[in-house]
């Protein structure tokens, strides 16, 4: 698996498709911290949402970077399409974790906050960023070129999902009571965003509950994708 991850990282960086999502994310974070001081958890909530968007974008560009013929060759060498999918996910998890670390550490080392962050808040921020990043990746899994043929459709659907996920709390307050159950199907991005923003006043259990919710949601998306990838054809186009 290490060999596959090393190969995918090399092939992704050589493709230069990483450039746009990475640069976009870095610019957004730098702009956000361009003035100081900033409130700790409000800033972390904002950068976590930026990471969610950035990881969804990075996920899509990563999953589409390899030529379909080369994907076939890699799967044959690996002897399993599911292992290949798992390897791609682990590579994306590694990239997400790196970005998570950079985004959480940057304001600390550049002294952008109005007060010391403290261990608890840093821990919550690391977990929140990681979870929002991974749900972005999990959504991108279903929109890659081998699943959604037209890239314009994939980008459109991704943008719609991002917008709905971020605005889910507002959307559910506008929906009639009988439709509220439907909001459970939405990616639970806004509850984590709220938990991060209010981490200073919320009970630990409240924060953890929102983290468990998004973790389970992501786990279901990922597990279903790995299962389906073993049943899917790996065509040349």
């Amino acid at each position, binding site marked *: 698996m290490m060999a596959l991850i090393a*190969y995918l990282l090399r092939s992704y960086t050589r493709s230069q498709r990483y450039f746009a999502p990475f640069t976009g994310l870095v610019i957004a974070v730098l702009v956000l911290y361009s003035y100081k001081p900033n409130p700790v958890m409000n800033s972390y909530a904002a950068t976590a949402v930026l990471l969610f968007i950035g990881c969804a974008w990075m996920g899509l560009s990563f999953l589409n970077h390899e030529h379909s013929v*080369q994907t076939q060759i890699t799967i044959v060498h690996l002897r399993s399409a599911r292992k290949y999918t798992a390897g791609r996910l682990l590579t994306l998890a590694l990239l997400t974790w790196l970005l998570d670390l950079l985004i959480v550490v940057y304001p600390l080392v550049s002294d952008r906050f109005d007060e010391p962050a403290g261990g608890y808040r840093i821990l919550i921020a690391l977990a929140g960023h990681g979870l929002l990043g991974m749900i972005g990746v999990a959504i991108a899994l279903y929109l890659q070129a081998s699943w959604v043929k037209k890239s314009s459709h994939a980008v459109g659907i991704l943008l719609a999902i991002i917008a709905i996920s971020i605005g889910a709390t507002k959307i559910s307050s506008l929906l009639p009571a009988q439709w509220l159950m439907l909001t459970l199907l939405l990616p639970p991005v806004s509850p984590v965003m709220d938990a991060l923003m209010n981490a200073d006043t919320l009970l630990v259990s409240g924060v953890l509950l929102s983290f468990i919710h998004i973790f389970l949601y992501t786990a279901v998306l990922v597990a279903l994708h790995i299962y389906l990838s073993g049943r899917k*054809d790996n065509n040349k186009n």
Partner: protein
Amino acid sequence: MSVRVPLIELKQASKLYGGQRVLDEVSMSIEQGTATALIGRNGSGKSTLLSILAGLIHTSSGRLIRQPNVIIGYAPEMFPGLKVTPEQYLRSMGRISGLAAGELEHRIQELLAGFYLEQFRHEIMMNFSKGMLQKINLIQALLVSPALLLLDEPLSGLDLPAIDQLIALLRELQKEGTAIIFSAHEPQMVEALADQVLVLQAGKMIRNIKGTENLWVKPTTYIYCTGLSSSEQMELTDRPGFISLNIIMDADRGEGVGLTVQPEATDDFLRQVLGAGGSIVSVEPQGESGI
């Protein structure tokens, strides 16, 4: 008596894309150390068949039976120009396959030299010619000595010395027990390697020719019969004296089978067809056989 277990077997495999049948009830059995040529026009289903055998595409119906842990080498058509050097690429593929470092370096060295690519090992592949890319494609398929080698149009873009080199290498592998299945338009490779030729037309396997000697001009007998099931037709292809089989669609009689057999085996085939409940429509001596 020892029973030879096929390395890989397809039983009445069909593949549909959006309701369109691109492979239609194809059956085949591949044993160790054999070379099978798939021939047919563009769109006849050769690449789909190879992808199914590689485990990349699932059949819509029918079965694929593969011996456990069969190591497959696969060289698809249209290998892309990548932004890495041959050495980096082959090292990655070898590691993914699980080859030990020392063995991998030796194989890369040996194969790059064998395909005259030694001097390009540190150059980015993006600007390689079609032939050079095809060589890299073949090398990656040969990195881990495969038990089953699947090659889709392997001669595409290759120069003459490389063709000779490839054929010699494949013969060597075949002797060592590797089963080779390749699609080709060039008779040169079919004649040099194949001991079985499967002819595909619009997704159907219309002929199954066994033995290279049967590709040449010789007297044969052509038997036209009807009323045989697919499995009974398959049984005929394993009998001594069998040369080729093609499916014939007749508006009056329905699906029929055209069998080309060696003259001395004619009686045996007639008995077999009648014994299986089939009906003989015609028997004709012929002056030649071939693809």
